[in-house]
């Protein structure tokens, strides 16, 4: 198995990068100017976190790469983001539901990472958790407002939850890397966060008058990189185009 801390840093960085890129797709297209600016801000927060995590991964011994190398010169199956985050934006409600389902996890994860045995991980988590605390406030309020809104907004939010629910399981399920990361006291096992996660989303989704689907199979293969959906390739094609066409081009 490859170095768990490197894998861990790639997972953290890729989650932030792929969701950040997805949110960036809304720039100039969001339903209201205020939402447009907010989505772009959140996207930029996540890209900033990407620089820290991938920068950290790239500096680990024997792996001298920059954050840009890792973002722009890896292939689909070298990415370790959660499947949830590569799902397309679809409508605004779907985007906010995806955001909410991840923000809740991200917040719990970063909170726990502040006591990591690895100082650099603590530092990045301490900075990121402030941003993510705001992301979570915004996405949960939006999910409640739209879920408990009009008949149409409620229906769209329920359909977003139904569609995204099968991707939630991957966040909360441990694999060998997660175990190794936990054994080295670098970070929590996802399964340790599960109880708080479920409690938290039950509360918000109840206020949003939305029903959590039952008995959905959990899709996996994103964080391990073994089975990404077809959507990631399209996202990368757009994101990596410039660096692929003009290697090492600089602003």
């Amino acid at each position, binding site marked *: 198995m490859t170095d768990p801390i490197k894998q861990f840093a790639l997972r953290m960085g890729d989650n932030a990068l792929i969701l950040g890129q997805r949110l960036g797709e809304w720039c100039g297209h969001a339903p209201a100017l*205020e939402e447009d*600016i*907010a989505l772009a*801000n959140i996207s930029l927060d996540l890209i900033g976190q990407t620089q820290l995590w991938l920068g950290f991964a790239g500096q680990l011994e024997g792996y001298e790469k920059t954050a840009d190398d890792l973002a722009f010169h890896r292939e689909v199956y070298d990415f370790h983001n959660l499947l949830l985050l590569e799902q397309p934006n679809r409508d605004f409600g779907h985007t906010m539901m995806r955001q909410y389902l991840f923000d809740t996890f991200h917040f719990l994860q970063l909170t726990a990472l502040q006591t990591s045995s690895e100082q650099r991980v603590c530092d990045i988590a301490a900075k990121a958790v402030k941003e993510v605390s705001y992301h979570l406030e915004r996405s949960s*309020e939006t999910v409640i407002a739209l879920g408990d809104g009009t008949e149409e907004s409620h229906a769209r939010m329920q359909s977003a939850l139904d569609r995204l629910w099968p991707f939630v399981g991957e966040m909360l399920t441990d694999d060998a890397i997660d175990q190794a990361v936990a054994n080295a006291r670098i970070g929590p096992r996802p399964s340790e966060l599960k109880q708080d996660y479920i409690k938290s989303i039950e509360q918000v989704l109840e206020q949003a008058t939305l029903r959590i689907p039952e008995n959905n199979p959990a899709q996996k293969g994103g964080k391990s990189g073994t089975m990404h959906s077809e959507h990631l390739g399209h996202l990368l094609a757009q994101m990596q185009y410039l660096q692929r066409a003009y290697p090492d081009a600089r602003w």
Partner: protein
Amino acid sequence: MSNEWPLWEIFIRGQHGVSHRHVGSLHAADAEAAIRNARDVYTRRNEGVSIWVVEAAAISASSPGNKGPLYDPSNSKVYRHPSFYDIPDDAGAM
């Protein structure tokens, strides 16, 4: 019923000890959403330590047509301006 969110006037306090200043307006569904939007629209570059939002409809404004009667009479009363004092540096912003 209008499909537009109500308009909110946004006031930001740039630093402790200074008053909130009007910075602009934006649309939001309610006061909490207006504060979140103001945070994203007006404090991206670390401009503020406090945000006030006021629904624009709740503001009563003086009429521009009343400019003469309201403001002109004070022009000739120079003694009302405390411009004859030296303000010590330690006093800070006045």
